[in-house]
């Protein structure tokens, strides 16, 4: 019997090609029989957005129109799910809460966990689907564990299926960073059809499948914000004035200005501080004193170690420590060498960098890689 797959479609080239690959099969080896094996249904998700205006917003009416058009060409059923309310509650309110607390949150990670592979997956399975597919640049690999959770070898028949999360073929486009919170339960039901291709190949596939995808703006940094984060926070949060403190030498501090709220700044930030006599960098946020710590010395931004909380291991099991990994502390940051040194109380972990890491911001995701494999991640504290 054909497996049922629900493909999340935003109207963009990536998710449109994902749907086409599922329906018609693709060049990647495991995709050859996609079209034969799958019954595909397209779903467009409506999210909350600050602006109701027309634009390139990935869940606006223009996008819905484009997605519907693609579904029509592919001759697949198409439905719209309205997640506005839940998205506002689970993603936007989280974003505001964390920002208010002086942290640098990552709403995309939460959206993937709670909405795309949370609500949508729940709804898809309730509809009798076997999989949810998305146009993420990431890969999933099915492996059979040769060993059980206690290291015992297993008979061939008793091998446990497990899923690995890998970086996509396109290293530049790779979006695995945003997927670190997924569980085995979720991965089991997920497909990433375009993870095997790079962006150019995806564009060519779109042409091959005759999909009318125009090159509109790439997914913005934060989809629900119309302009920039600062303006959004200014509109949504009441200002909370506090001192801006310069740290000149270790231990020497002086107040040089005032700020309107710690949430307008992120660690490592240089531009837009509006201070004369710079350049200055945001060094830290002192939440208790509501103080913004800045420095002229860029070297002060480098940290030797960090702590993470809410750690998720993709395999479902804690890895043996110490564990040598490559780590990414921001979505745009390059990978650095590090060691997960030890477990701390309250589920926290201590991570030591091989070299200093610049601008580590509490609230951001620290994601652990081992080769192409994403092994887990945590929230920087």
């Amino acid at each position, binding site marked *: 019997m054909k497996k049922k797959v629900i493909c999340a479609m935003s109207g963009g080239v990536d998710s449109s090609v994902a749907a086409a690959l599922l329906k018609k099969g693709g060049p990647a080896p495991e995709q050859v029989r996609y079209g034969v094996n799958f019954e595909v249904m397209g779903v467009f998700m409506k999210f909350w957005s600050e602006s109701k205006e027309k634009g390139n917003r990935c869940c606006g009416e223009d996008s819905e129109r484009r997605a519907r058009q693609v579904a029509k060409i592919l001759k697949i059923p198409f439905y719209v799910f309205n997640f506005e309310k839940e998205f506002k509650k689970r993603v936007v309110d989280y974003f505001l809460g964390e920002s208010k607390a002086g942290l640098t949150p990552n709403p995309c990670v939460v959206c993937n*966990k709670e909405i795309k592979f949370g609500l949508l997956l*729940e709804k898809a*399975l309730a509809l009798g689907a076997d999989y949810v597919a998305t146009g993420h640049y990431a890969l999933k690999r099915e492996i059979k564990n040769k060993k059980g959770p206690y290291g015992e070898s297993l008979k061939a028949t008793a091998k446990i299926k497990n899923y690995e999360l890998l970086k996509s073929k396109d290293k530049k486009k790779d979006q695995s960073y945003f997927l670190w919170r997924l569980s085995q339960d979720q991965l089991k039901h997920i497909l990433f059809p375009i993870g095997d291709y790079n962006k150019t190949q995806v564009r060519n596939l779109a042409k091959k499948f005759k999909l009318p995808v125009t090159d509109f703006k790439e997914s913005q940094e934060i989809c629900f914000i119309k302009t920039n984060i600062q303006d959004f926070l200014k509109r949504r949060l009441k200002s909370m004035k506090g001192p801006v403190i310069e740290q000149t030498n270790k231990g020497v501090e002086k107040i040089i200005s005032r700020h309107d709220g710690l949430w307008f700044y992120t660690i490592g930030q240089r531009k837009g501080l509006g201070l004369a006599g710079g350049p200055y960098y945001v060094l830290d946020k002192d939440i208790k004193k509501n103080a913004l710590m800045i420095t002229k010395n860029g070297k002060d931004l480098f940290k030797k170690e960090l702590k993470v909380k809410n750690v998720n291991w993709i395999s479902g099991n804690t890895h043996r420590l110490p564990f040598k990994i490559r780590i990414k502390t921001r979505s745009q940051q390059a990978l650095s060498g590090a060691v997960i040194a030890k477990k701390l109380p309250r589920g926290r972990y201590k991570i030591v960098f091989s070299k200093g890491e610049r601008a580590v911001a509490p609230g951001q995701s620290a994601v652990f890689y081992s080769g192409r494999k994403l092994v887990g991640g945590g929230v920087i504290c």
Partner: protein
Amino acid sequence: MSKNKIYLDYASTTPVDKRVLKAMLPYFSEKFGNTMSLHSWGQEAKEALEESRDVVAHLIGAKAEEIIFTSSATESNNLTLKGIAFAAKKGHIIISQIEHPCVLEAALWLEKRGFEITRLAPDKYGLIDPQEVKKAIKEETILVSIIHANNEIGTIEPIEEIGKICKEKGVYFHTDASQNFGKMKIDINKMNIDLLTASSHKMYGPKGAALLFVRSGTKIEPILHGGGHEFGLRSSTINLPAIIGFAEASRICKKEMKKEAKKLVVLRDKLIKSVLSEIPGAHLNGHPKLRLPNNANFWFEFIEGESLVIQLDLCSIAASTGSACSSATLEPSHVLSAIGLKPQEAHGSLRLSLGRWTKEKEIGYVLRVLPKIVEKLRKISPFKIK
């Protein structure tokens, strides 16, 4: 309609009857005149418009000059609430909690501008108690607006009793009859209705035509100003083809409504009876007897209505969870909430609305498919993300 597809969503909109389409066709390219023009094209159009007015007026016992053609029921309802409110300048308006969103939203808009709004709660069948209306009316009350037959659950309200009370109290009484106009007999005099909304596309006419009956002497302001069409109450070039279609649809309904209702009641009751007896955990929404001949509305335990509608769609059956206007949101229906359903119960709702071309064998097919889908959906254990 396509042969293998079963359309059971007549409450959201209906196909145009072939006879209606035939009547409309000359009015696009041959008799295309503007009703306001002096020349023969204009006169021809004006005559056709006034003849249409006679036809629809006749259906509810109104005088022709009391019929204002509009573009939609939403427009008619907005004209009623805002028009009466603007004419009175201030005052109190009574509606029910189970009105169509256009009445609810127009009332909310007026409330923000200083008008007082009372929203009456229905009983568990969706019935509004006329005594509650009586109690709510006060010195300042300028309008009572109660839906004639509910679009989601099909409950028919005691309009005649409410009308009588409004007449005694000297308050204007409006009813939104979008769902039942052309499907059951309406007598605006016997029912003491001062304003009434009806829509063409719910009764096998085209979209883009509707009406507001306004009793002579009613104090009401227009919301569209311009060339003074429709007795100064609704300026806009007349959409004659749509109005011709509306009138032809009314003519057909007048002739066939009794027979059609009889047939639909049999099919509806068969559907309701079988669903309730064959599907465990199925419940009827609305009143068992006082309901539209074509409306069946259920809620199923442990089922999400949206999933059900999608599964039915994949089986070529068109249904709806509630009204088409609210299917774009995840909010539980305000009507089902008002009749006391809990949010998870309201989410399990399914509306099947029958119509002119619904066949017995189609109902038979639905009755074969629906229990299987419900069973299948229930079997899939709810997946909670860990």
